[in-house]
Structures are given as structure tokens and as C-alpha cells.
């Protein structure tokens, strides 16, 4: 995506390079603009956002920190996303092996089924799981509706498509001769998968975990019906805060979230080259 991909010193080539660079800068600015606006808003002193601002202040960060609901929502979102991502990987890695290596009737259908949470609206997933849990409770007497497991199960669905797609794509790219060498030297298929294949698809696993975590952490539609009493996720806490207040506290929370997810992406890219697998 850099201007250097257009070579040559003829005027038309120089012009094309400049145009490509300008277009790239424009797209990057467009992507970064919401982030920049949120950061700007979080430092505005006034309760109502006006341009030009009435002044600048750090006070909204203090207000955000003192909101119990936002703090506890952050913690809930963190553990729900962590558990859902871990379970998502545990479920989808074996599934990806089967999909990438196996040739069986209905393979495409299974793949599409695992990807289907992406095409069903989140609110429908949340409401459906909730009604299902209520029905199970009616039939069995097990207190499932309003339990903490409902939200974890629902968020597991959110992470599955990302994990399946990324892990399967990485498995397809694995050099099978390395695995065959391990097998020919006496390693069992399980030992080969754990000690040879998984290390080779490590970048894909990390990418799957990152994307699954981010999708789960930021989700609101699925969570709305499924949060257990006494718990709330950060996106719900933000939505509820806005019901009564319009000050830049939420912008301050969003900046904290951006920093957290940004730091996770930077740390991940140091472990593995995300650009190669995503």
C-alpha cells in the first residue's frame, strides 16, 4: 500500500505515486478520525460537547473511575471474553482439524453452520438463547435463566466463527511433509498435532484468540438478555450511563478501552506477525 509500489520517474508515474499516497493517507485518516474524536471529547471540560470546547480537563477520567457500574462492567466483560475465547479455541481447534484435513459428507454444511453466528443478528442470538434457557428451566427445574453460564455460552457462539476461520486457514497452509516426517519417526497423530502442527499454526491461534476476545468484549446485543443479576458488561454499563447523562465520561471509558485493546494488539504482534495471518 505504499507509493513505492509504483516505480519509474516519468511524470505520470510520479503523479500516480502521489495520488496513491494521498488516497492512502485519506483512508487512514478516515479510519483514525473516530478514535481521534473520542480522545478529544474525553478531554473537554464541559458536560455538553460543543465546538470550540469550553476548556480542557482530566476530570471525566476521575468520574469514570468512580463509577462502580463501569468498573464492575469492565471486570465482567474481561472474564466473560477470556472464558468464551478459551472455550472457543478448545471447541474450534479440533473442529478446524476435521474441516481442514477431513473429507466427509456435509463438510461444507458444517463449516457454514459454524460460521452462522456471524450472519444472525446479535439481538436474535441473545433473545433466542434466553428463551431456550427459560424453556429448559421449565422442563427440568434447573435454574439456568439469569445464570452466569448463559452469557458465556452465548459469547462462545460469537468467538466460534472467528476461531474456525482463522485456525482452518492456517491449517490449510501447513506443510504436511513436516507432520508426515513426525509420523514416520513414530509419533502418534495426537503427539504430532500437539507438538508439530499446533506450534506451526501458533500465529493463527493467537490471532483467533485476539479477534474472539475483542468481538466478545465489545458485544452488547447478545449480552442484553443474558447478563445475570448483579453483573453487567461494560458495553451495557456504557449504554445505561448514557440513558441519564450526556457528559464525556463515556469518552474517557472508551479511551481506556482503546488503550487496552491497542496494547493487546501490540503485544500480540510482538509474539506473532498478525499481518501474515489475518
Amino acid at each position, binding site marked *: 500500500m505504499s507509493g513505492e509500489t509504483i516505480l519509474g520517474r516519468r511524470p505520470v508515474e510520479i503523479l500516480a505515486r502521489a495520488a496513491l499516497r494521498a488516497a492512502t493517507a485519506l483512508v487512514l485518516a478516515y479510519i483514525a478520525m473516530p478514535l481521534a474524536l473520542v480522545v478529544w471529547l474525553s478531554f473537554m471540560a*464541559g*458536560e*455538553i*460537547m*460543543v465546538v470550540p470546547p469550553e476548556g480542557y480537563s482530566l476530570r471525566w477520567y476521575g468520574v469514570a473511575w468512580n*463509577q*462502580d*457500574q463501569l468498573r464492575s462492567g469492565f471486570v465482567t466483560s474481561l472474564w466473560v471474553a477470556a472464558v468464551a475465547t478459551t472455550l472457543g479455541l478448545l471447541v474450534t481447534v479440533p473442529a478446524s482439524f476435521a474441516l481442514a484435513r477431513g473429507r466427509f459428507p456435509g463438510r461444507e454444511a458444517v463449516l457454514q453452520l459454524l460460521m452462522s453466528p456471524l450472519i444472525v443478528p446479535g439481538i436474535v442470538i441473545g*433473545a433466542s438463547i*434466553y*428463551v431456550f434457557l*427459560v424453556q429448559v*428451566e*421449565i422442563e427440568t427445574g434447573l*435454574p439456568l*435463566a*439469569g445464570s452466569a453460564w448463559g452469557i458465556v455460552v452465548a459469547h462462545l457462539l460469537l468467538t466460534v466463527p472467528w476461531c474456525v476461520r482463522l485456525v482452518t486457514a492456517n491449517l490449510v497452509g501447513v506443510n504436511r511433509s513436516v507432520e508426515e516426517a513426525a509420523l514416520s519417526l513414530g509419533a502418534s497423530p495426537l503427539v504430532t498435532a500437539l507438538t508439530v502442527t499446533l506450534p506451526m499454526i501458533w500465529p493463527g491461534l493467537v490471532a483467533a484468540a485476539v479477534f474472539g476476545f475483542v468481538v466478545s468484549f465489545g458485544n452488547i446485543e447478545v449480552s*442484553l*438478555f443474558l*447478563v*445475570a*443479576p*448483579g453483573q*453487567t458488561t461494560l458495553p*451495557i*454499563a456504557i*449504554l*445505561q*450511563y*448514557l*440513558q*441519564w*447523562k*450526556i*457528559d464525556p465520561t463515556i469518552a474517557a471509558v472508551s479511551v481506556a478501552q482503546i488503550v487496552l485493546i491497542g496494547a493487546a494488539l501490540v503485544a500480540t504482534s510482538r509474539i506473532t506477525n498478525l499481518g501474515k495471518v489475518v
Partner: protein
Amino acid sequence: MREGNTVMSAHLNRRAFGLLAGAAAAGIVCPRTVRAAPSGQIVVGTWGGDYQNLLQQNVAVPLMTPMGVNVVYDTATDTVRKTKLMAERRLPRGSMDVAALTASGSFEMYSNGALEELDEGKVPNLQHVQPFLKSKYAAPHIYTGRVILYNPKLIPEKPTSYADLWKPEYAGKVGLIDLQYQTTIESAAMIAGGSMTNYEPGKAKLLELKKRGVKIYPTNEAMAQALKTEECAICIMWLARGVAWQKAGIPVEIAYPKEGVVLYISDMVVPKNARNKDAAFAYLNAILEPTSQEAFARTMGYAPTVDNVTLAPALAKQVSLPADLQSSFAKQDQDYLLKTDASLQEWWTKEFKS
């Protein structure tokens, strides 16, 4: 010993008979139920944010904790709460003991058989509820009225009617809120020959306003910004929100429409399948206590729903609707809205906004 027992037993039987007869007589004379002392945990389904914070600070901590009742919140929008109440109707024990709903929501849930009926035996403070807020299924927690907000710099003459929004000189200065399509059509109907059970005349009236030039803002927050930047000069809004905006430095004054003040009521209800009904009734009683009512008036700008609270004069002037307007108070007809809301929304989206 046996004899003695027999004698004792006969004696007790006579006493027991007397006690039972007395209790039965007391039950007939005094219908109030003697309830078990509330204790344990209750789940309160509510809006979050400041509203939940204030419930915790002014109801849970000072009034419920000393009783030994622990309050846990199930935070969501009222649409989610209504869906949950409906879905859980067949469960012997629901997930909420108390649910906060708008008046239309509590009516809808009661109509669907999801709510416990209330009386002063269960919730003694219901005796203090203002007559125009009473219902047999809900404890009204807070209320406010629909008014006109205007910027006196841009609208020099104080409005007296919703019709003032249609004045040609205010063309382009009027703002409406997308989310408030229902109340907006209703307000227009009030000046076009409609009523609380007939919003139809409001539609043509609003199309007139559209021709003159009207700005539609997606949310209350967007409207607040528009008023602050003076992009919009006049709008229809709730009094409590107007008070909050004044506190936030938005240059608006409040005017009461002569057509009548329609009330917004936020209720608390108890589902039929609440797990801890005694504590739930105690919670409803606590939200009607004068101390918590005063706190919500002071911090959120909503008027108390009970008649036994005394507000500081300045606060009373700010949050209370003028006494002389009480005769003009109007309540939405929830049955009508239940039947027509979908079509009102469709008209708003397809014909008015397009």
C-alpha cells in the same frame, strides 16, 4: 400425667378456639395482611447509570440493608425487562423480584397477567401516592410532565401552547426527537382536534411543520447539543430533563402548554413469580419513603409521587408541576398506545421522516 394432659389439652383447645375465633374476627374487621419480616436477597430489574446509583444510595443502603435485605440489580433497558417478564411468566420463580418500568410497560405487563396486584396491606406507603398516579399493580416511583423548552434569546415571547412551535417566525428553529415519535404525534394531535385516544389529526399537523422546516435529532443527547449550540431554539421535552439541562448550562426556559401536561410516570412492579415477595413489597414501600423521594427530586429533577414529602421551596418550584395545572394533567391511554404504537412508528419513519 395422662389425665393432666387430657385436662390441659381440653383447656388449650378451648383457648385455641378462642384465639382462632378472635383471629378470624380480626381478619374480617382488619383486612391488612400480617406479613413476614422481609429478609434475604431481592433482584431489582432497573435502568442502570445514575438511576441505579441513586436507588443504591437512597433506597438500598439506608432503608433495605437495616432490614437485612440485600439488593442485587439486573441492569437492562425496559424493553429487555418486559421481554424477560413475558418469557418467564411460566416459570414458578422468575429472575426479578422488582422491575422498574415506564407506565406503559407496567400496564402492558399487567394486561398480560405478569404482575402481582398491590394494596396498602402489602405496601403501606401506597396510601400516600398522589391520586392521579394510583394504579392497582404499580408503585409510581417518579414522575414528570411534558413541557416546552425554549431559548429566551431566540424565542423572546414565552410559548403558551404546542401551537407556538408552528409559528412562521420560528420556522427552522424547531427541533424534534426521533426517539420521541409517539409523544410528538400526540402533542400535535392535542392542538389539531385529537385526543389521548386519537392521534390521527396530529399526523397532518406534523406534515405542516415539516413543510415549514423542522430539524429531527436522533436522541435527547443530540437535542441537548443542538440547544447548547443554539442550532435549535424550541422543542418538546420532559420537565425533569429540562431541569437537568438547565443545571448543565444549556440556555433553556420552561413553558407549560395550555393544552395540558401529559405525565411521564416511572413505576416499580412485583412479578407474580417473584422469589422474595415480602422483601419486594418492602422495597416498593421504601421507594415511596419521603427521604428517597426527596433525594430523587433533588438529584434527578423528578417530582415526588407521594403527598407526605416536603421539598425545599426552591427545589419544589423547580421540579414540581404548578398546582394550578393539576386539572390539566393527562395520562396516556396505554390501551390505545398498545394497539397503535407500531403504526405510529411506521408513519413517522415512512411518511414524516422520509
